[in-house]
């Protein structure tokens, strides 16, 4: 990747903006290169051509889970998934939330889901017929596990999902880079099924004690199941409440769970608005605070990186000279 960007002609270099070398950029996004050190980031010089470097083997099967419901798993799946698609990776998002499926709603694809995995298993349709391609980003596809009122046959347990991943692997158009699985809440049969094919997990939690206890439990189960690569996203963070000591800070959360951070998503009213529109936040222009945070999380997911610094507190903006008279 680095070498590719070095090959770019000088003309394109001069036409695009140079970014002054920023040491913090490194601390925020440095890929975890524990095995072999890489040369310093030339890639940060060029903005247009900057792309995150995909780490790990494809397909990266990532399960997005939380234990507690309503903390933002589906929101995370939709936004991280579309961010990855925007970065040029092919993504298949599996809505494994049997019973309470709503990823299709968040993505605005609810009218296009005709077949689900249950129909594929029964032989009512082929797998490619059940995949719903997003029209905005054609490298993003949605796959629902079951219709809201039908029952998922668990006779073969999580094997069905393993077959799905295998089938996606040797598709004609190539193996997808990412398979994101939106896990149902709880630790019931649906959860067990959903985590089966995953080799890494994103744990979504909010900074409150109820969500944290569930998150710890779920992390324990994931580790028992052999998923070792677990990172967390702390959602619905309110820096104003943290400053007033009314809410746990992200670092407190990390101290309790002992997981590395993939992202910190602030509470943002735009999240609900984008849910209503069926238009994920990360496609918003101009970008919103939560949208940017999701995109940064997606970037780190690609590079298998984690946060090195967190935003903790809102500083009052420096006041101008004349605000003295106004106040």
């Amino acid at each position: 990747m680095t070498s590719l960007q070095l090959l770019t002609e000088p003309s394109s270099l001069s036409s695009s903006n140079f970014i002054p070398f920023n040491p913090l950029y490194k601390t925020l996004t440095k890929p975890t290169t524990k095995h072999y050190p890489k040369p310093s980031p030339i890639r940060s010089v060029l903005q247009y051509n900057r792309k995150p470097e995909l780490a790990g083997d494809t397909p990266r099967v990532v399960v997005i889970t939380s234990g507690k419901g309503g903390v933002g798993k589906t929101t995370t799946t939709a936004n991280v998934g579309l961010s990855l698609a925007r970065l040029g990776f092919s993504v298949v998002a599996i809505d494994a939330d049997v019973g309470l499926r709503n990823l299709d709603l968040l993505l605005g694809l609810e009218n296009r889901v005709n077949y689900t995995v249950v129909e594929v298993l029964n032989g009512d349709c082929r797998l490619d017929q059940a995949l719903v391609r997003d029209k905005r980003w054609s490298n993003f596809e949605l796959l629902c596990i079951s219709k809201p009122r039908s029952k998922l046959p668990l006779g073969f347990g999580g094997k069905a999902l393993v077959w799905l991943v295998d089938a996606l692997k040797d598709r004609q158009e190539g193996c997808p880079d990412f398979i994101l699985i939106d896990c149902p809440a709880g630790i019931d049969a649906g959860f067990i099924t959903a985590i089966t094919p995953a080799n890494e997990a994103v744990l979504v939690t909010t900074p409150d004690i109820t969500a944290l206890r569930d998150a710890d439990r779920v992390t324990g189960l994931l580790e028992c199941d052999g998923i070792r690569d677990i990172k967390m996203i702390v959602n619905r963070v309110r820096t104003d409440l943290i400053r007033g000591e009314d809410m746990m800070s992200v670092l407190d959360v990390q101290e309790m769970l002992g997981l590395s951070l993939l992202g910190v998503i602030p509470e943002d009213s735009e999240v609900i608005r984008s849910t209503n529109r069926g238009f994920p936040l990360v496609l918003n222009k101009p970008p919103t605070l939560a949208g940017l945070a999701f995109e940064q999380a997606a970037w780190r997911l690609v590079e298998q990186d984690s946060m090195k610094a967190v935003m903790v507190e809102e500083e009052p903006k420096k006041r101008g000279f004349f605000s003295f008279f106004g106040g």
Partner: protein
Amino acid sequence: MASFWTLQLHPISIPHRVSTNAFELRPQLGFNKSYRIWNAKNKYKDFFLKAAGNSSTSGEDNPIKDEKFLIKSKRNVMLVLQNQVSRLQETIISLPPIILSIKSSPYSKLALGFCIAASVLIVAVRAYVARKPRYQRQGSVADLVRRGQLNSDRRGISKTPMYDDPFNNPLVKISKNNSSVEMCGKVYRLAPVTLTREEQNIHQKRRSRAYQWKRPTIFLKEGDPVPADVDPDTVRWIPANHPFATTISDITEDLAQNNVYQKHGVPFRIQAEHEALQKKLEALQGDQKFNNLVIDPGTARNFERPFKSNIKLDDQQVEHNSANGQTGLRPESQPKSHESSSNSTSEEKPTQ
């Protein structure tokens, strides 16, 4: 000591009395502004002295002395005022008013008007020249983007091409010393993450001790017998009325796996149903029970499933019939009961 205090106290009362005088003077001198400034200055002095005077109690002791000084100072002030006013009047007279000077020369007025007109013209011409090339460059890639044929995000020609990098764009600014970040107009302090690998491992060990869990290897309906080769600890019991899961499946595991892996062609169940129907038809044809039967759309609907391939199926049936020389005739009375019963079983099977 007392006299010292009274001396300092005098000016307090001065402004009030003088001010009445000044008002009297005003109409004569036509002089307003300088008075106000002078008055304001005195007010400040007044305030200051009041503050000083409040602390002393001796101020009220000799009112007569006070009065005497007052008259004296009043006279002084009047003198100063008259001096200032006369000086100001002199300067005003010496200065020729600007508007008068313009009015006096009609040529300069004309020149001024010309200057304004010329500058307006230059601005207009410049704006026109700047706009012209844009019209000439019609049909560029930007038009394709506008018509929705191209994705602007990929081309880098839209307004916000820089935004693809979430760490480095106009809305995310990191301060020089890496201590704060500005996102969407808000400044946040940055704190380093301190979690170490060792701490992570400690947490992992704690969890593995706290949550001992074995992945269930088999899902069984409550009440089912546990198979002999299965560890009872790894059985997950699914209640019969589970909201979204069932242990019952009408197809075997291998078949389901094949269904998932199938890439081309007709899906398994569609194929199977088609074949079953065809077999049935052939059996019926063998029995020669088509004679004197009238087509019934109700029966035809029995065959339909919400798949397009069924249309093909019906066509084939009609073809078969016509091949038999019985165009427009369909099985009716006797086969109907047989078909509807078999159809319903095949429909209900998957939902159980």
